[in-house]
């Protein structure tokens, strides 16, 4: 199912020049963080995502792109109101997932960070 929602934060958050519309899962549109929130969340979580995925370089655009990939390809958790997708196993066997939280009725990304299987309630 495809539907569109006006992006009220387009002026602030349109740092990649994507269209001023967003879509729910199943569409091809690009979802964004609200306002300038992407920068704050990137600062908090990017280092950990780099370590888990083994990337030596990672920027804000990669961060938002990866969040959108998880929204498009991940599994939805109604309990956490977000999507998750497996990323890697830790050295002690901990399964690690990328988690993208949603808000504003699913039209805006609230966060993208790492969660373990236990934190997602998967075991």
């Amino acid at each position, binding site marked *: 199912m495809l539907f569109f929602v006006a992006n009220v934060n387009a002026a602030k958050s349109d740092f990649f020049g994507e269209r001023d519309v967003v879509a729910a899962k199943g569409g091809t549109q690009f979802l964004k963080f609200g306002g300038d*929130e992407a920068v*704050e*969340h990137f600062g*908090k979580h990017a*280092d*950990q995502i780099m*370590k888990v995925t083994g990337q030596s370089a990672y920027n804000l655009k990669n961060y938002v792109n990866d969040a959108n990939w998880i929204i498009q390809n991940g599994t939805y958790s109604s309990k*956490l*109101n*977000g999507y998750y997708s497996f990323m890697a196993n*830790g*050295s*002690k*066997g*901990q399964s*690690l997932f990328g988690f993208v*939280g*949603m*808000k*504003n009725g699913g039209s805006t990304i*609230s*966060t993208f*960070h*790492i*969660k*373990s299987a*236990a*934190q997602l309630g998967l075991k």
Partner: protein
Amino acid sequence: MEEYIVSIKEIDWLDKENPEAEILFEISGKQFWAFCHPCYFKEGEIVEAYFSFIEEEVSESAFWAENKEQKKEVVPSDSNRCHYYCYGELKSIHPVVIDCGAIDLSFGDWINDERMIGSYVYFVMARLDIGRV
């Protein structure tokens, strides 16, 4: 998952709608910061909480050999308040539970040799998480 009584000292919100925050809490007279999502704590309350963490890679040799002083301690990193260097004693192996002094941390199920119980170990938490029971 072990439950603890903690005192919530401060909440630094990252987002309130899909509630995400870093929490300063006190347990056994010591204060720690932890990441919390979804976050249902309030400042000033005393509540039951549980802990989990995201591991950071340490070598097998460091895990078993780095805690020569047989410490039980959770040491915060200078650069990230939710990142910790952990020293503790292996309490059980199914699951792996490590007594780090103020907190026992559960660490999966990846050791089979019961002779290792009682060993002093070292590991790194990339992020300590706290949740409300």
